[in-house]
């Protein structure tokens, strides 16, 4: 049983530089998968290989069981929304959306009607006669989405499409894109470096770093059990504590600075004496004046308090380990910068990362 989209062992080299190193991935029909990673991590290169604008040095891309590696971009039937939307400035919104149909030989009257239908689906009913420069950024985005979907593509690729929008509009468009994608059931790959975007929209997130897939899992799985310390630090905020497993059976590790630790379950088999990294998310740490019963605790010197109103970030040090703690805005009054306080957590919020 093969998946709808199959990337197998994709490599891409520019001279001596390896941009992609053995990337393999399966995507099911109708899935919304996000490629997440810093710039230069290979996520956009992978997208461009799927689209056909870059040629892989090795490996294959299959859609619906058929290899598309040798096809030119115009033969692939893939809808793409580019970072800057790439709307044709000399065409109206409706003509832009009609364009892929025009290229497929649909006559003008029928094609423009289809284009108008698609525009109303993306919430732009009645905007068809406007030129791109007469539309706002969010509206241009919707036109680009309509244009990439109107010809019923086998895949929808979105290349950081929300980067140019302001924060409120971006959140609104996240919801919009998700709604449209679901209603059409189109298999979608979304590229972003924004982790909150990835968390809120995806069925699965593929984390890229240095041309490799670091982890591929559902958003909450990625958040709660990152496989590598790169993933842990890239997604969400994290406190990483180096430690040694002292008793794998009883799930106990020892940190030279913070002492003995109980930790939660790990997918990986651990051995006594193994070097690991312990992850504790800042929102799982409690701040108090004195140690709390039943919780592992440590002393922390508070260095900085960043107040966001509804919550606050407390930055400090436990021994030589930098620590970040998220507390509710109301709770922050109990401490001051430069003071020492007590931080504590329960074993089920301590995750083990093996590499």
């Amino acid at each position: 049983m093969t998946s709808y989209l199959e990337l197998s062992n994709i490599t891409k080299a520019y001279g001596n530089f390896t941009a992609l190193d053995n990337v393999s991935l399966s995507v099911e029909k109708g899935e919304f998968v996000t490629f997440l990673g810093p710039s230069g991590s290979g996520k956009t290169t992978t997208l461009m290989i799927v689209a056909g604008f870059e040629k892989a040095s090795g490996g294959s891309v299959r859609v619906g069981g058929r290899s598309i590696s040798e096809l030119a971009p115009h033969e692939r039937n893939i809808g793409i929304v580019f970072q800057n939307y790439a709307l044709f400035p000399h065409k109206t919104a409706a003509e832009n959306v009609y364009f892929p149909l025009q290229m497929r030989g649909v006559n003008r009257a029928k094609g423009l009607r289809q284009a108008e239908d698609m525009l109303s689906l993306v919430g732009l009913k009645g905007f068809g006669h406007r030129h791109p420069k007469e539309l706002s950024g969010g509206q241009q985005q919707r036109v680009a989405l309509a244009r990439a979907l109107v010809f019923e593509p086998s895949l929808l690729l979105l290349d950081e499409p929300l980067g140019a929008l302001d924060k409120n509009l971006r959140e609104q468009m996240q919801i919009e894109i998700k709604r449209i994608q679901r209603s059409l059931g189109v298999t979608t790959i979304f590229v972003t470096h924004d982790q909150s975007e990835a968390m809120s929209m995806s069925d699965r997130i593929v984390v890229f770093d240095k041309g490799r897939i670091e982890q591929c899992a559902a958003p909450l799985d990625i958040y709660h059990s990152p496989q590598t310390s790169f993933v842990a630090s890239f997604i969400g905020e994290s406190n990483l504590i180096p430690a040694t497993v002292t008793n794998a059976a009883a799930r106990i590790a020892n940190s030279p600075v913070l002492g003995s630790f109980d930790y939660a379950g790990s997918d990986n088999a651990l051995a006594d004496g193994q070097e690991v990294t312990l992850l504790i998310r800042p929102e799982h740490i409690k701040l108090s004046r004195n140690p709390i019963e039943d919780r592992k605790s440590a002393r922390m010197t508070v260095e900085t308090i960043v107040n966001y109103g509804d919550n606050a970030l407390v930055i400090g040090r436990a021994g030589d380990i930098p620590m970040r703690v998220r507390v509710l805005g109301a709770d922050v009054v109990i401490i001051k910068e430069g003071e020492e306080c007590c931080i504590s957590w329960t074993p089920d919020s301590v995750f083990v990362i093996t590499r």
Partner: protein
Amino acid sequence: MGSSLSRLTERTNVWPWLLLAPLGIYMLVFFVVPLVDVAIMSVTDPRVSLVNYQRVLTGALYQRVFLNTFLTAAFVTVCCLAVGYPLAYLMAHSKPRTAMLILLLVTMSFWTSFLVRTYSWMVLLGNNGPLIALLQMIGIDDTPQLLFTRFSSTLAMVHILAPYMIMNIFSVMKKIDPALIRSAESLGARGWSLFRHVYLPLTAPGIANGCVLVFVICLGFYVTPVLLGSPREQMIAGLIGHQIDEFLAFGMGSAMAMVLLLITFVILAIYHRRFGLDKLWG
């Protein structure tokens, strides 16, 4: 306090104009004043009347020359476009080294004096020139007359004006967002349909700029048609020169110059309404 401050800003506002003054005075003395003089002459020489205009607008010879000038300018424009568009495309889309080489070739002919270029064509196309020699060598004895024909003047004008066309189109092509082309490809366009529906419309402003510039310059072209063209197929600037040099008919020459100027303004005005004159210079 407040008033002294505002006086200061007022004084600073004068500076840009002061900097502009040398140019302004120069243009006034050497361009506006002579132009007004020409305008006055057109209605006062040999006497105060509109008789010069009447003759320019109704005389068969003048009508023919005006028409000929327009047709020549239009033909030269079309030729420049036909030569310039593919060359600009090559320049905009080939590897940097190749692009540099073409750019160098185009601008090199642009830097060479116009008169030198015109005389070079005389040498190349002359009866003892290399082109005729080549034709004779391959066995054509009845060689055609190349120099002093419509062919030679058109060829030279296309050569001289093509860089204006090329640079205008090139600058627009260079600014086309590659994502637009990629997106067109991803939507199913390629080859001719990609060119016709996306690339050509995107370069249209460059084409319009280049055409207007070449056409307007060509309308008033003097040296090249006079030196290389057929005496029977004069262009308007040549005829104006003729009126003044040979007949000392300053009024007649001035009236013709004013009509030409007016026509040029009308063309630029139409262009301005459609595209905006500010875009003409890139």
